[in-house]
């Protein structure tokens, strides 16, 4: 088992390295550079000397190979350097946003799980009945609605209903405060985006639960369980769900990883100062160091999540456990 974990950990390296190389090259493909943008982001005169100086200061005058090695070496030491845009340590810039994104991702994932597993199960058990159709339509509607649209509707709905109920319009806070500082403020801000994205993401997991369960329900061992005279509830819970959850776990894991960086649009709508927004900003600003760090963060979250999923998988599936 330890060996398995170790091997899995080692396997992350090439993916991360590849991601590093990819983002490094991609960034250099983007026309323009951070110094020009920073020195002359607006209209007006650009002093070429100042730009050169800026290049030198940021190390952009070095060869790509050196820059890449520097980036990797920093990454290995967990030293992400400073943002080329603001000149501040990346860790400082990212910390709060990471916290926010993580919180939203966790809440959205919980929402998704809480919706998906019961809905998917009902839908599979009642396959091809109207219950099934309603559940499927409900969950697909979640994917079909553009998230920003849903967000705008939610905010407007809140403003309008609160006005008619309390007399003054209420909207979720637009500034993040960590959960332990002011839980009420925090939750009233995060709950809506979490619900909206959670609903959205539950669609995938619901569908997965349903089809996995349908498949499992056709398996021989479920027939065996029925032939043994077990009650239906027990068959679903112990025999079918146990196996059907395996692929669901994978999907949820991947979705979780994607939620960490992929909420670009939702963040805009709810004014969440999260990683997605930062990513967009740093790409537009050609902030190489920040973009690289973010990409590595997202990639690392992805591989780590995958790793955790594999461990959970192994824990759920004895066939892998002892390999």
């Amino acid at each position: 088992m330890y060996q398995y974990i170790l091997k899995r950990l080692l396997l992350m390296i090439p993916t991360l390295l590849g991601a590093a190389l990819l983002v490094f090259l991609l960034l250099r493909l983007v026309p323009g550079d951070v110094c020009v943008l920073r020195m002359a982001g607006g209209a007006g005169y650009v002093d070429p000397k100042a730009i050169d100086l800026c290049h030198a200061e940021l190390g952009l005058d070095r060869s790509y190979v050196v820059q890449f090695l520097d980036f990797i070496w920093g990454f290995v030491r967990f030293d992400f350097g400073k943002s080329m845009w603001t000149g501040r340590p990346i860790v400082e810039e990212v910390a709060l946003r990471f916290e926010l994104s993580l919180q939203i991702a966790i809440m959205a994932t919980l929402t998704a799980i809480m919706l998906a597993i019961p809905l998917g199960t009902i839908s599979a058990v009642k396959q091809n009945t109207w219950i099934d159709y309603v559940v499927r339509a409900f969950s697909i509607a979640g994917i079909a609605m553009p998230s920003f649209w849903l967000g705008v509707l939610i905010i407007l709905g809140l403003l309008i209903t609160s006005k008619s109920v309390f007399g003054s319009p209420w909207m979720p806070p637009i500034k993040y405060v960590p959960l332990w500082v002011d839980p009420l403020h925090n939750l009233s801000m995060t709950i809506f985006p979490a619900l909206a994205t959670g609903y959205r993401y539950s669609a995938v997991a619901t569908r997965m639960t349903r089809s996995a369960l349908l498949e499992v329900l056709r398996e021989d061992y479920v027939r065996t369980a029925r032939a043994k005279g077990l009650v239906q509830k027990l068959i679903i819970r112990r025999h079918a769900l146990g196996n059907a959850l395996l692929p669901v776990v994978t999907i949820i894991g991947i979705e979780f990883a994607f939620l960490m960086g992929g909420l670009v649009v939702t963040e805009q709508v709810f004014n969440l100062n999260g990683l997605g927004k930062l990513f967009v900003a740093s790409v537009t600003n050609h902030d190489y160091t920040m973009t690289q760090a973010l990409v590595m963060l997202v990639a690392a979250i992805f591989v780590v999540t995958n790793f955790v999923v594999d461990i959970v998988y192994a824990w759920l599936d004895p066939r892998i456990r002892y390999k």
Partner: protein
Amino acid sequence: MAPELVTIRNLKMHFPVIEGALFSKEVARVKAVDGINLTIRKGETLGLVGESGCGKTTTGRCILRLEHPTGGEILFDGKNLVDLDQKSMRALRQKIQVIFQDPYSSLNPRMKIGEIISEPMKVHGTEPNKAARDARVAELLRLCGLDPKFADRYPHEMSGGQRQRVGIARALSVRPEFIICDEAISALDVSIQAQIINLLEDLRDQFGLTYLFIAHDLSVVRHLCHRVAVMYLGKIVELADCDELYGNPLHPYTQALLAAVPVPDPDLERARAHRIVKGEVPSPMNPPRGCVFHPRCPLAVDSCAKIVPEFRELRPGHWVACSVI
């Protein structure tokens, strides 16, 4: 005696068991075929029997060069297939054909029967002209007991037995000399099996074909084959003429195998004593030392666990790998 068509010498096929995608390491080897010797003469049907996983299919795949053997040589018409270059191999390929077990997945579901049968002719250029190919397809279909109209059908529009006939027609299309039948009838219904067996027999007589007939149904093998080789865990444990083998099995494994086959006659069956061999076939990943059969062998003595038995010719044409008898 007819000349040798295929000669297998000390053929080994060890599959590495690889773990880890990055620092992939061979953690074990599956000795699917572990040093077998066989000859198949022209016009002869050699039966290859043995239990699941003993390496029958692998042997066939090595001859077809679908696997690259770990060691040994396979002589076909005097040419060693193991180290033949791609080009010469391609030329030889039309002489060696194969019929697979599963009539459902051995035909490309997206191709019409006609295309399936004519494709090898087209690629090998045996029949460069389309009209000639179509005529040959019709002829082959008729030969295999199918209506030539079937050429326009897709495989899913046919029954299992009919598909197996298409498989046979495809194998025959390039006029091979040697056909490997890997469990060619096991997937078929009992009532259909006999039809195919008869067909194979007829074709053999008509074209002087040589078969390697891989099967686990001992009674079918007895019906169809001239000589029979019994495999166990990657090795050949007994090889003899058909009647000799069935009438006078020497190896304890062969005896157990024959004893385990019930015959469709209740009076006979109930009278017959059953010698049931204990245990199950071990994994080829770590086969027992010495004689691979010794853990299950009723005759085993201490030395069996140590000494690998020699493959001896105990009687003329009857070879056995057992050191006790």
